[in-house]
């Protein structure tokens, strides 16, 4: 990861980048907590990683909650924030966002590979597309001080070899794009995630940008990548964009929300099962069903070969058989005669 000069504070465009990714918002939310404790800490540097982890985890949590609400809305705060709700439970109620985070972060080889590249890019990137005037001030942060702290926290986390949470990189991507779709999203009711603040249609626009590989984002990420990886990034972004949508569609319907990993069973009926009316009334898989009807038109055993392939084989055999039959008969007759 390239070094970053903290000495002169955080340049304006870098602050905008942090705001776009949700980092400033997350810091604001937690300002009374980890940030404040950092200010009181005896050794601020030693606590930086802890603070970074807390802030970024909050950011990722809310960003993915916004994602699963997008995939399968419910009546939760994230569904309400996007303006599309449903009276029955949704992906958030199934803790689908937690499963995405857990799965992404356990995808450990990626941080060692892709993630190092993305982390390097995010740690130093800026955007050429400024936020509207006054947007940063509206966050209410004492920017000079807190932006420095937050930027250090982000860099501490991303610069930690082998321990970059992939969920954070995905969340940063979604939030960065969200602020491009609607810059006001950095000021919404969910300060930890611009993406989660977007209206449903705007969330779709985020994925439209990602799937067509937003050139601004690529430029922002690519500028810091080592040469062999530079050609990888557009494929990666496409992969990430698609995978997030597919994984959101998957996780919302799993048993994860009520699954006891130690016991290997769901402790109650999974939300995903309930909303899909799967195995009504059950929370465990079945050993069988009474779905066996029979065999279609009593077709229980396909013939070995189609006539085209059977006929040729038989013809040959018949010829051989005839010859074999005739010869002994003739001989016998001869003998009898």
């Amino acid at each position: 990861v390239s070094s970053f000069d903290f000495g002169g504070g955080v340049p304006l465009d870098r602050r905008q980048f942090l705001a776009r990714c949700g980092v400033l918002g997350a810091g604001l939310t937690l300002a009374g907590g980890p940030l404040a404790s950092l200010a009181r800490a005896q050794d601020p540097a030693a606590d930086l990683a802890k603070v970074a982890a807390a802030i970024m985890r909050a950011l990722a949590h809310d960003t993915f909650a916004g994602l699963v609400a997008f995939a399968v809305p419910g009546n939760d705060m994230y569904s309400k924030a996007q303006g599309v709700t449903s009276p029955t439970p949704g992906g958030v109620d199934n803790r689908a966002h937690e499963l995405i985070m857990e799965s992404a972060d356990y995808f450990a080889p990626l941080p060692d590979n892709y993630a190092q590249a993305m982390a390097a890019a995010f740690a130093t990137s800026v955007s050429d597309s400024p936020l509207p005037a006054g947007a940063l001030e509206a966050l209410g942060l004492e920017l000079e001080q807190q932006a420095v702290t937050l930027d250090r926290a982000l860099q501490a986390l991303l610069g930690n070899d082998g321990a970059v949470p992939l969920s954070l990189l995905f969340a940063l991507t979604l939030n960065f794009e969200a602020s491009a779709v609607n810059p006001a999203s950095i000021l919404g009711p969910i300060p930890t995630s611009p993406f989660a603040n977007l209206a449903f249609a705007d969330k779709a626009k985020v994925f439209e940008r990602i799937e067509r590989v937003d050139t601004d984002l690529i430029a922002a990420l690519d500028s810091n990548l080592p040469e062999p990886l530079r050609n990888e990034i557009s494929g990666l972004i496409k992969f990430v964009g698609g995978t997030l949508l597919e994984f959101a569609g998957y996780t919302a319907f799993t048993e994860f929300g009520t699954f006891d990993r130690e016991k290997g069973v769901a402790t109650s009926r999974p939300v995903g099962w309930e909303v899909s009316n799967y195995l009504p009334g059950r929370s465990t898989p079945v050993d069988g069903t009474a779905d066996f009807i029979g065999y279609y038109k009593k077709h229980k055993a396909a013939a070995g070969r189609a006539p085209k392939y059977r006929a040729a084989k038989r013809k040959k055999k018949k010829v051989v058989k005839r010859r074999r039959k005739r010869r002994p008969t003739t001989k016998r007759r001869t003998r009898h005669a």
Partner: protein
Amino acid sequence: MPDVIVIGAGGGGPVAAKELAAHGLDVLLLEAGPHETDPENNWSRYENDANNPTTGYLRYGPGDRFNKPNWFRDLAQNSFLWQLSGVGGTTQHYYGNNPRALPGAFNDYDGADKDAYDVDHRFPFGYREFLPYYEWVEATLPVQTAAMGRKEQLFFEGAAGIGLPLNRYKDVTRTSFRPQENAILQPGGTAGKTTDSAKLTYPQARGCTFCGYCFQGCVQPRKAPRNLKAKRSTDNSYVPMALTADLWSKGGRAVKLVPDAYVTRILTEGAGDSLRAIGVQWRDTQTGARHTETAKIVVMAGGCTEDPRLWLNSGLPNPNGWVGRGYTDHFFDWLVGVFDKDTGNTRGVGSSARVDVPGRGGLENVGLPPALEGFAATLSESGIRGHYKNGRGMTGPWDGPAGRPMGLELKEMLSNIDRLLNVLVITDDDVEAQNRVVRSSLPPDENGPIPKVVFRPRRRSKRTLANREDLNALGVALLRKAGAKKVLRIDWAPLILHVQSSMRMGSDPRNSVLDEHAQARAVKGLYIADNAALANGIGGPNPTLTTQALATRTAEHILVTHFAGDRFVGRGAPVSSIADSVTKAVLARGIT
């Protein structure tokens, strides 16, 4: 020193291993993943616990799934590569669909439609010559005509309703529909007739119990010996036979199986035309210890993505550049029919009905539980319905533009999972050099440089693209005739699941890696016995049976050519994996 080392205990490796061992050879079978020896207790059959690509018990990674991460593979596009490690490989989650290839995929085909296939990449031998190998595997597994459940009944109504004839043969000679030829034991006793677990243990229940969990691994019927489990994944069929070959085959020897053994290098001696494989290096995925083993013959069977990786990581020659090229994936697409009546989507075998269209590919029904249904509905190259099309969003006889439903539309669609009927579009796709495996430029993992899989879905050949469109139209007609009130076309991004031909055999040395016996052209004594060896996408049918028949043919060739053995296919019937002699052997050896 073993006679033969087989790398990979998935769909093909155990077939070659079993045949060679049954005929007296000393075989070492190395598998990178774990060997599950108590699936009844360890496989929960919950979707995420089974299928989560990072922590599922059917993932691609080392054993100890909660403490060791999965093996990451580099994908250069929106796509999903569905690999499985462990004994059984991808057959652990397959649906047991075992149709034969289309005759038009072979070099003896002279039908009127002979130009409708991938004519530049045919198999370097004839379909007629290959038929005895099909029959050998079909008897061994065994392959049986699928029983019908509700979703099959609907599919057949739709297929017959649009005028397709029923095919009663194992060979496909015309456009037609049929129950699948499945490597799944037909239901017997109480199987398929009850949901009461107490009545579904062996031997009261025999064969398929219609539980609906093919994709999560087959443990039914409970208490059945491992070789009598309903689904004939190789961990239930060929592997138990391989491990007991000394007991049921006169003159046979038991295969030595080593799980958690990741092969990192093929060892060779000589150079140029005399370059020869002499063994392998492998790494214990649990301890990290490295081992070397030599043998007279080495058989690669790690799969379409891993074979090229191992080849390239071993520094083996690639004179024509075709190592890893020509990857075919049947360029799947996905149709979802929404009904106002029960479809039985989540019940029974994953797929028991299909349509075959020579020269085009085919269709099959696919039943899914909710999370996989959610995944399948959102894997798209066409954006989000109603919002953006990602440069595609084709329109046609389906409802609205192609694309993924999200939000309320997705939720509404899945609100009653048993009122959906899915149709998988399986394209007869061309071998194309651009679709390939290369070594990723990302840093290596503990086993060496990782593979990168490159597919270009928008640049497929004209024939491939046209086939996919034709089949989609046919699938929609079928669904509507079956009673679907709404049909969604998802326009799947590459789901790399049916994998073929990345180390293809062929008659032309300029575009093939293997000769007509599946031996590497550039390295003597090195064979391939998995889907990578297939010459093409076999015309669209699911590839497992063809791979297993080809692995049998390859094993026979190895036996005759390198060990002075006799041909065995076509000279008497094989021992079935469910024969009493095998069951006795499995029980005697304590294989579970």
